[in-house]
């Protein structure tokens, strides 16, 4: 059994003291016993990122339209767009997805990647649409996270759009229809 006391610890944070020098032994033989020098180094990048052929999906979100693609050869529907069919290799065309879908599965994230920690707890959902076998990953809003249960699967949901688009997949999110 884990003892509660073992879990008590001061939170580790990343700020610290700027270090310009360290003690150094007279005898070089002592160097192998030296503690490692650990420094904080920044690692940040801005990317010039293109959505390429998938750009119309994000233009759709900015205009309150949820787009997928349909294969012009076999009719397969890609809810998350692909401009070439993953089933038959045919070329796909843009189409508007139905105005309502159902919860295929979901979760409540109480932790997350650093970028999203401040938003926890948040709900992720995979939405299914009539006539399509592929799904869409999105956020589910308006559901009490403490009420998470498999009974939510199959419930009807509809998309809502941000008023000011950020050209990210979170420009759309889903809420329960009922």
């Amino acid at each position, binding site marked *: *059994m*884990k003892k509660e006391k073992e879990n008590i610890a001061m939170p*580790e944070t*990343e700020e610290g003291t700027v270090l310009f020098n360290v003690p150094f032994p007279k005898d070089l033989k002592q160097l192998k016993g030296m*503690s*490692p020098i*650990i420094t904080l180094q920044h*690692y940040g990048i801005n990317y010039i990122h293109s*959505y390429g052929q*998938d750009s119309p999906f994000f233009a759709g979100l900015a205009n309150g339209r949820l787009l997928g693609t349909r294969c012009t050869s076999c009719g397969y529907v*890609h*809810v*998350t767009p*692909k401009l070439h069919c*993953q*089933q038959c290799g045919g070329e796909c065309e843009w189409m508007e997805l139905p105005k309502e879908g159902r919860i*295929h*599965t*979901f*979760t*409540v*994230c*109480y*932790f*997350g*990647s*650093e*970028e*999203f*920690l401040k*938003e926890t707890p*948040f709900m*992720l*959902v*995979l939405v299914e649409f009539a006539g399509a*076998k*592929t*799904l*869409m*990953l*999105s*956020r589910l809003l308006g559901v009490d*996270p403490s009420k*998470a249960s*498999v009974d939510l*699967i199959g419930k009807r949901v509809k998309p809502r759009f941000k008023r000011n688009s950020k050209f*990210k*997949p*979170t420009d759309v999110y889903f809420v329960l229809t009922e």
Partner: protein
Amino acid sequence: MRPVYMVSGGITKFAKAHPEMTFQLMVKKAYDYALADIGLTHREAVDAIDGVVASYFSDHFTRQLMAGIMVQDYLGLVPKPGHRVEGGGATGGICFQEAYKSVASGVMDVCVAYGFETMSHVNTWKGNEFIALASDVNFDYPVGGFYTGYYAMMVVRHMKEFGTKVEQMAMVSVKNHINAYHNPYAQKREQLTIEDVRNSPMVAWPLTRLDVCVMSDGAAVALLASEEGIRKLEKASGTRLRPVRVSGVGRGTDSMRMADRPHGKVILLPHESPDDYRGLDYPGIHSFRAGRMATKLAYDMAGIKDPLKDIDFVELHDAYTSSEIQTYEDMGLCRYGEGGKFVEAGNPFLPNIDYGLKLKKKGTIPVNPSGGLMACGHPVGATGLMQAVFAFWQVQHSIKKHFGNDLLQVRDAKRGAIHSHAGTGTYVTVSILEKA
């Protein structure tokens, strides 16, 4: 292709952080252990080894491109051939198979597969961000990229389709942590109960902190050789090797976005029939088609007809308790949908260890006797090779020598399977190790 053998292995203990070592030294320690275990000096090894394959997952964690060659020069193995492989969580498993191919093809007689990861260089939540970059950064990552969240969604669907229970998932955690309690290489050695797992903080419903593996620093090395290579090594070291044959390798893939996975028919294993799966949409997001593909190819190559009869133990990629249950099914240890009941009955537990649980069919086929990723840790590039080393020692019956006790030695182990898994089931490798 010609027969390939694993002849030695080594592991640098997985830990939360190894600030006292750079990645080069981490690999060197595992490498030196592998050489010492077959009585090979550095010089003899350099003379015998034909080339290497390097494994590390993330350029973000390492923040050093071409880190593979920096290990190779530290080991003194330049200018011999070498390259790095990358395939998410399966990087180590892919590395093992690329070394296999180098030997099987006749290109090399002796090949070193080495892997490492240095995940302690960022905090846990930044680490989760780095890992989540292994999801589509246009459509998936920005929604709230978090692998535990992705796996939670998959198991919620598994629960809906098949009635899998959170307590069954917790039993996987109890099993793997208690196994690791007897493994000196494990990062976490804890005696847990089902209640401990369920009462631990919720990470992504229904997965708690004890349903999820931890991040680690660590390294592992596997030495592979042909029959000619074994003769060379035996001549060089003057000792008789105890090789283990790599009798099957298989690999499968699936779409990066789990949302894109189609619904079709199950890829059947020899002991299954289409009647087993009438009306099941497959793989959906509840099963790993890549895992089934890898399994089928590896079983076919090794001549495995019924895994429960033909395999003595499995080391599989339990990054989550839920994915261990899903993988029982992919590997045909039970039918699709029966994974929860399979663990509940005790099948994947070791027969001789006390888990504080009542188990009806204890020890049918031990899964993760080492403690798996769940408790040993998951320094991604090293993980698949760690599994190879543990499986090698199991088939060699040398667990006592390497662990200092034989509690985790699978009795009469003649053949084992290792399983390495990436993404949301994107790349999966299965390899079979058996008595030579």
